[in-house]
């Protein structure tokens, strides 16, 4: 028998890095993936962006018996994108909501007061919005603006002394929301989801079908590193894609970056968390698909509910009550909410920890499932 020779154990990270690099090269050289990764979101945003003309305003109808004073009302008045309509009767409003002519009706009532500092009381307001299922896009946008304004008021009041409240308002006053500000976060989440679902599942199915995975198994590379390299390369490309979409929105359509580079960094961090979860869904698809024909339907199955229920396109409030709790915990909803918070409300990344935590919980759970279900041959 030939003598045993000493064998140096191959370093796995060398294999991992090489596979990641190869996978990035493959994606960048693939015209289809290039189109869906970069051009497609551009086209989408451009279409929405062009729909947005300079002075587009949303009508927010104020109910006749609503308060028309107080900090909430005044803050809303100062929002450029909103036009507060006060001349409609209750009957007109209800009729308009049914027909979709009134997107959202606003009702503000004072409900007591709260002590926020020694000797300082602030009134507490109940703000109720009624939105129309007949005008989902406008309702979604208006609701987002109002939520953002309320969010600002609440954080400034609870975190700071009353005097600073006024200064914070001046920020709201100066902030101009445009249509792109509502569209871009949702589009970004949507682009990340579709690319993740389709990209990694088709790549790995091809690897299986062409026995490329099997060929790799005959080498010392660990199986987990093959998946890890795919996930890493797809995530790198997704981050690049997010950065380009944000830059595109900012330079061409005046997408609002509330805190400049901090907001960019926050959005890219959220993109990374989101893509990590969405890629796990892509791996789950390829784990349960019998062949490449069943990939597309399965991807649609994971994509469609998230698309409709995430609030990126239609407000969650419009869905039946029993669906809403589900809608709120879907990964894309969490990502969309987090994007809106940092981009739109300008809050710190740390304020989106509930969303990030929820996303990571999804991710860990699904990756464990993938490791159990993934069929290597």
């Amino acid at each position, binding site marked *: *028998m*030939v*003598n045993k020779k000493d064998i140096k154990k*191959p370093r796995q990270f060398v294999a991992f890095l090489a596979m990641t690099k190869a*996978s990035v090269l*493959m994606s960048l050289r*693939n015209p289809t993936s290039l189109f869906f990764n970069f051009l497609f979101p551009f086209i989408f945003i451009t279409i929405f962006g062009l729909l947005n003309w300079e002075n587009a305003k949303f009508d927010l109808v104020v109910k006749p018996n609503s308060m028309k004073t107080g900090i909430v009302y005044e803050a809303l008045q100062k929002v450029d994108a909103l036009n507060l309509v006060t001349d409609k009767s209750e009957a007109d409003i209800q009729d308009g909501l049914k027909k979709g002519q009134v997107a959202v009706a606003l009702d503000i009532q004072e409900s007591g007061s709260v002590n926020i500092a020694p000797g300082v009381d602030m009134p507490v307001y109940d703000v109720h919005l009624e939105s129309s299922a007949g005008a989902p896009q406008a309702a979604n946008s208006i609701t987002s603006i109002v939520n953002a304004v309320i969010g600002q008021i609440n954080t400034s009041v609870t975190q700071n002394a009353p005097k600073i409240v006024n200064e914070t308002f001046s920020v709201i006053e100066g902030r101009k929301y445009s249509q792109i500000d509502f569209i871009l976060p949702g589009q970004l989440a949507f682009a990340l989801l579709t690319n993740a679902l389709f990209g990694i599942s088709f790549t790995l199915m091809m690897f299986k079908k062409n026995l490329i995975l099997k060929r790799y198994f*005959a080498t*010392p590379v660990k199986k987990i590193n093959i998946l890890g390299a795919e996930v890493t390369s797809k995530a790198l490309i997704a981050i690049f894609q997010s950065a380009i979409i944000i830059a595109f929105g900012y330079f061409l359509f005046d997408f609002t970056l509330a805190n400049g580079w901090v907001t960019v960094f926050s959005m890219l961090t959220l993109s990374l968390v989101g893509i990590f979860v969405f890629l796990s869904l892509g791996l789950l698809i390829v784990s349960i698909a019998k062949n490449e024909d069943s990939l597309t339907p399965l991807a649609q199955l994971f994509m469609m509910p998230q698309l409709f229920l995430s609030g990126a396109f239609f407000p969650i409030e419009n869905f039946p009550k029993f669906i809403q709790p589900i809608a709120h915990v879907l990964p894309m909803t969490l990502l969309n909410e987090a994007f809106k918070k940092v981009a739109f409300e300008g809050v710190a990344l740390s304020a989106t920890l509930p969303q990030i935590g929820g996303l990571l919980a999804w991710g860990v759970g699904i990756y464990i499932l993938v490791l159990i279900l993934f069929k290597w041959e």
Partner: protein
Amino acid sequence: MKNETIIEVKNLVKKYGDFTAVKGISFEVYEGEIFGLLGPNGAGKTTTFEIMETLKDETDGDVIISGYSINKEAEKIKTIIGVQLQAAGFPERLTLRELIDLFASLYDVKVDSIELLKKVQLGDKVKSYVKDLSGGQKQRFSIATTLVNKPEVIFLDEPSTGLDPQARLNLWGLIREIRDSGTTVVITTHFMDEAELLCDRVAVMDEGNILQIGTPDELINTLLKKGFKREKLEKLATLEDVFLDLTGKALRE
């Protein structure tokens, strides 16, 4: 020269449910030879191959390659063998050079990819994609990927299937070169002329058993000793000789 054993297959059994694909076979492959595993479809060749290649677990028995046991030290065996799978593809949109570098990294070794591609006569294709290669070029490239880790043994599963006679001749030349440079080659084939001309020793397999092992000449003599006679006397040339005489031996691609 004494024949040193590099692969020892011991009572190897592979069962798929109730079906036994490999029924306790034993054989040895010597260092520096071209060893052919022959047999009709379903004989158990590929299963035996895949167990030796660490791609499938054995049900019983063992395979020792260069002193390492397949059921205990598969990870080590992976580093000293090279594997060419039948009909396996490569990742798309990577050049031959990039693929060679990728495979080298999987073994954590450095390799002169251009030199290696020249060795398999693909020196002018370093920047091509696999999909743009001819059948013969693909096979030669596939063999090149098995050599990145300077393996002690390479396994080639039906390497000449689908090739024209010129490409086949050329491939045999390459396989002999690899053997002459010290690498043991184990191949499977359906073509008996290939086995006779290329292999130093062959094992004939059917229904999960090894029927006979020896050099091609030994196997032929054994048959003749049993009194076998061809009905028609062997012609002094074959149709393949005619084909190559008419079309030349130069490689077409």
